[in-house]
C-alpha cells in the first residue's frame, strides 16, 4: 500500500477560466493522490468552486484553458455525466436534491435501477438501503427529502455519490450548514472512504476541520495557486497567512460594550407548525435585548432558532402565533414583514438562495430592495443615490465582484451572503437578527463582519445572532440564550459561558424533557 499512497490520481495543469469581466482562475495547478483527503482553501471568490466545476465538467472542455489528467489519461469532459463515468463525483455548495422525492428516488435520480425504462422499486430500495448503511444513515429509503434535516440530506448526497462508484469525491463546503456533531460524522466518513482508497477534495472555510482531516492543503488566492502544504506543514495560522496574504492577529475584534436599557422584548411567544396544527414548535419564549448589546442564541440544529426568528419577523413561519413583542417598552405589531421592517426589525436569513436574494438581479437592486424608501422620494427612485448606497455597502462588506452590476447569481457563495447582509444593514434597523451570518464566509471576511456587528452595537443597535458555531457566539456576543426543542433552556453572560457549559445546559434540558 505504501507505494499507492503517493500515486497521483488527478492532475490539473495551468487551468485558466474567464467570465465576462472576471478572470476567475489563472494558471491553477492541482494534483490529488489516491486515497488522500486534499483540501482547497481560499477567500470568498478565490475560485475554488469554479475550479471544481471545471474539473467535473459543469464548465465543459473548451470553455477553459489547461489540462485535466485523471488516472493517467487526459480528459475532455463535456458534461457532469462524462466526469461521473470516470468516477469523479461532485457535491455542490448548494445541495441538489429534489425535496418532494424520497431518499431512494434521489439517490438513483438520473441513474435509475430500471430495465427497459421501467423502474425496479424493490431493487432501488434495497440498493439505497445498502449505500445508506455505508454512510451511516438509518433512515427509511422511502422518507421524503423535505422531512429530514440538512445534515442527513448531506449524507444522502454522499450516498448518491457512492452509488456511482466514486473514485474521487468532491465536496464543496459540505459542513457549512451542519451541526458540529453532523460535521464530525461526515469527516469521519471521509476518513473511512480514504481507507477504502477513495480520494476526496474538500473545500471548506472551517479551518479547524480542514487541518484535522486533510493530508494536503492547496491554497488559492485571487484565482491563482499560492501553495500546497503537506501534512506536517499544516497549521491554521499558516493557512490564514497564505489565504489572506497577511497574518490575522485576532479572530474576533475587541469590544467594549456600552449596554443600555432594554430595546426589544418578546414575551410568552408560542408558535405552531405551519402544516401540523397541533405541533407546537416554539414554546413560551421570553427574551430581551438591550441597547448596544449583542445577544446570541445557541442551540443545536433543529432547536427552533430559525423558526423563532422568522415567526417574529412578520409571522413568516408558523401559525397560531401568540405572544407579545415590545420595542422600547411599547407593544408593536410585527404581524407582517412590512410592519416588522417599519418598526425597525430586520432578519438576515440563513438561506440566501431561497429567502435572501433575487439571483437574477444585480447587487445594486438586491442591496436596496428592503429599504427602497431610503433611495427614493415620492416613490421615484434616485438612481445616483442608489448607486452611492450600493457602492458604499459593497465596500463596507467587502463584496468581491466586477461591479455593483454583477448578477448575484454569479457571485461566489460567500459574497452572496455579504449581499444579504448589506441589504439589511442598509435597512438600518433597531434590532438586527442575524441567522448564521458567517455561513460560508472566509476567515478574513468573518473578521470584517464581526467588526460591522460590533460597530452597530456601539451605535446603540440591538443585535441578535443565531449561530451554530459556538466559538463565534462566544467571541462576539455579550449574553447568550440557549435554546432546545423550541424552549429557552438557559441564559448566561458570555463572560461566564463556555462550549462545555452550553452543551451541559442542552443535555440537562433534554434529560428533563424525556
Amino acid at each position, binding site marked *: 500500500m505504501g507505494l499507492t499512497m503517493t500515486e497521483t490520481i488527478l492532475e490539473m495543469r495551468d487551468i485558466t477560466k474567464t467570465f465576462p469581466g472576471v478572470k476567475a482562475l489563472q494558471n491553477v495547478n492541482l494534483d490529488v493522490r489516491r486515497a488522500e483527503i486534499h483540501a482547497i482553501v481560499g477567500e470568498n471568490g478565490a475560485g475554488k468552486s469554479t475550479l471544481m466545476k471545471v474539473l467535473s465538467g459543469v464548465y465543459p472542455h473548451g470553455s477553459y484553458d489547461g489540462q485535466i489528467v485523471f488516472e493517467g489519461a487526459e480528459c475532455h469532459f463535456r458534461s457532469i455525466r462524462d466526469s461521473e463515468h470516470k468516477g469523479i463525483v461532485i457535491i455542490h455548495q448548494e445541495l441538489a436534491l429534489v425535496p418532494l422525492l424520497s431518499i431512494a428516488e434521489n439517490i438513483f435520480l438520473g441513474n435509475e435501477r430500471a430495465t427497459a425504462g421501467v423502474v425496479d422499486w424493490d431493487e432501488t430500495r434495497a440498493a439505497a438501503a445498502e449505500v445508506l448503511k455505508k454512510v451511516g444513515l438509518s433512515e427509511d429509503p422511502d422518507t421524503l427529502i423535505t422531512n429530514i434535516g440538512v445534515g442527513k440530506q448531506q449524507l444522502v448526497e454522499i450516498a448518491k455519490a457512492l452509488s456511482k462508484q466514486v473514485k474521487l469525491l468532491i465536496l464543496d463546503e459540505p459542513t457549512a450548514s451542519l451541526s458540529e456533531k453532523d460535521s464530525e460524522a461526515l469527516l469521519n466518513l471521509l476518513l473511512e472512504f480514504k481507507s477504502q482508497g477513495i480520494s476526496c477534495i474538500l473545500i471548506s472555510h472551517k479551518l479547524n476541520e480542514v487541518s484535522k482531516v486533510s493530508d494536503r492543503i492547496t491554497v488559492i488566492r485571487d484565482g491563482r495557486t499560492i501553495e500546497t502544504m503537506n501534512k506536517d506543514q499544516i497549521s491554521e495560522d499558516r493557512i490564514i497567512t497564505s489565504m489572506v496574504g497577511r497574518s490575522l492577529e485576532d479572530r474576533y475584534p475587541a469590544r467594549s460594550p456600552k449596554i443600555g436599557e432594554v430595546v426589544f422584548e418578546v414575551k410568552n411567544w408560542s408558535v405552531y407548525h405551519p402544516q401540523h396544527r397541533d405541533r407546537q414548535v416554539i414554546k413560551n419564549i421570553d427574551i430581551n435585548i438591550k441597547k448596544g448589546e449583542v445577544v446570541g442564541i445557541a442551540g443545536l440544529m433543529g432547536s427552533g432558532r430559525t423558526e423563532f426568528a422568522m415567526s417574529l419577523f412578520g409571522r413568516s413561519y408558523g401559525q397560531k402565533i401568540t405572544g407579545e413583542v415590545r420595542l422600547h417598552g411599547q407593544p408593536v405589531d410585527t404581524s407582517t414583514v412590512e410592519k416588522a421592517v417599519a418598526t425597525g426589525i430586520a432578519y438576515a436569513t440563513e438561506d440566501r438562495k431561497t429567502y435572501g436574494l433575487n439571483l437574477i438581479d444585480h447587487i445594486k437592486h438586491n442591496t436596496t430592495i428592503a429599504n427602497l424608501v431610503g433611495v*427614493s422620494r415620492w416613490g421615484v427612485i434616485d438612481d445616483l443615490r442608489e448607486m452611492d448606497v450600493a457602492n458604499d455597502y459593497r465596500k463596507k462588506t467587502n463584496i468581491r465582484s466586477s461591479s455593483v452590476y454583477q448578477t448575484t447569481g454569479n457571485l461566489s457563495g460567500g459574497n452572496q451572503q455579504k449581499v444579504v447582509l448589506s441589504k439589511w444593514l442598509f435597512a438600518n434597523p433597531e434590532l438586527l437578527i442575524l441567522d448564521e451570518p458567517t455561513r460560508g464566509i472566509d476567515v478574513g471576511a468573518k473578521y470584517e463582519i464581526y467588526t460591522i456587528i460590533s460597530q452597530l452595537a456601539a451605535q446603540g443597535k440591538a443585535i441578535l445572532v443565531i449561530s451554530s458555531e459556538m466559538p463565534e457566539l462566544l467571541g462576539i456576543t455579550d449574553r447568550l440564550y440557549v435554546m432546545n426543542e423550541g424552549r429557552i433552556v438557559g441564559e448566561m453572560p458570555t463572560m461566564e459561558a463556555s462550549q462545555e457549559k452550553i452543551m451541559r445546559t442542552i443535555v440537562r434540558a433534554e434529560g428533563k424533557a424525556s
Partner: protein
Amino acid sequence: MTTETMPQGSTPPASGAAKSSIWSALQANIRDYGLLLVLILIMVFFQFVTNGVLFKPLNLTNIILQNSYIIVMALGMLLVIVAGHIDLSVGSVSGFIGALAAMLMIGWNFPPELAFLANPIVAGIICLAVGTLVGFAQGYLIAYYRIPSFIVTLAGMLIFKGLSLAILAGKSVGPFPPEFQLLSAGFIPDLFGPISLPLGGAQPVNLHTTTLVIGVVAVLTMILMAARSRSRRSARGYETEPVGLFVAKNIVIGGLILFFTYMLASYKGLPNVLVVMGVLIGVFVFLTKRLTFGRRIYAMGGNLKAAALSGIKTERLTFYIFGIMGALAALAGMIYAARLNSATPKAGQGLELDVIAAVFIGGASALGGVGQVAGAVIGAFIMGVMNNGMSIMGINIDLQQMIKGVVLLAAVFFDLYNKNKA
C-alpha cells in the same frame, strides 16, 4: 424611448480594456440593440419585397393604427409576466369591453334620465372602470386565494367570450358616434397649418406642422435627458457607456423618430391613438425603471419568497398589476371597436396570443423577473410589421401564422442562446 443602459463593470480586467470597451458595451446590451436592429431589418426587408409600399406614409400610419391595441395591452402584460404570472383573458376582456361600449352608446335605449350614459365620454369612463374591476377581480383570486393566474384568466377568457356574445345577442353593433371614432380614426389638429415642401416632384409635399414640432421636441428632450443623466453619472465618478456608443445610439434612435415623424406628417399627422400610446409607453418606462412600484414587481418575479421577506406586500402588488392589466385591456377594447366602427361578438378573440408573443419576443422571461417595456413595444412592432408586410404581399393567412410562430420561437431561442453563452 429611453433605454437605460447598464454602465459596464467599473473595474474591467486590465488587459485590453480600453480598445474593446465599445465592443463589450455593445455586447452587454445586445438584447436591447439587437431587437431594434431586427425590427429595422424586417422593415427594410418588407420595404424591398413590397416594392416600397411598406414605407408609404399611409401604410406606416396604418401599421400604427393596426397595432395600437396590441401595444397598449403588451404594456400591462409586461408587468404581469415580469411578476411571474400570465393573463389569458385580455383578448376576451377587450372584446367584452368593446361590446359594452357599443351597447352603452348604441344598443341600449336608456330612459331620458339615464341618457347621459350613452355619452361617449361617460361610456368610455364606465368601460375603463369595468375593465379595471374585471382585472381586480381576477387579481384578487390570484393574489389572495393563490389560484394560479393561468387558471383564473383561462376561466376569465371563457366567461368574457360568453358575456360579449350574450350582451351583443350574437349580432354586430355599430356604427359608433363620430366622437368615439376619433379615438382610432382621428388625427391631432394642426395648430399652425400645413407647410408645403416643393420636393422636385409634380406636387409639393404638404407637411403637418404640429406633428413635426412634436417630433422634434420629443427627440430634443430625449437627447437632453440622456445627456444630463450621463453627465450626472460621470460627475459622481461612475462609469458611463463610451461616448461613441452614446452618440451613435442617440443618433440612430433620434433619427428613426424623426424619420417616422416626417412620414406621418406627410400623411395626416399624428394619429390620436399614437399620442395615447406614446404617453402610456412613457408612463410605463418610468414606472418600470424609476418607480419603487416597478422595482418591486421585478423583485417579486425574480424571487417571490425573498421579496416577501424584504417587506414587499406581494399580494397587494399582484392585485394592482391585474387591475392595471384590466384597465389597459378595456382601453384596447375601445380602440379596437372604434377602429372597426362596430362591436362584434368575435372581437378580441385570440388577441391575447399576439400580446403575449410580443412580450416574449421583447425578451421577457416566462419565469418572471425579466423584461423591458422597450422590448415589449419593439416586439409588438415586429409582429405588426410582419403581419402588415405579409398581407401586402398577399401571403395566405395560414402561412402567416406559421411564420409568426417560427419568429416567436427564434426570438426566444436567440435569447436563451445568448444567456447561456454569457
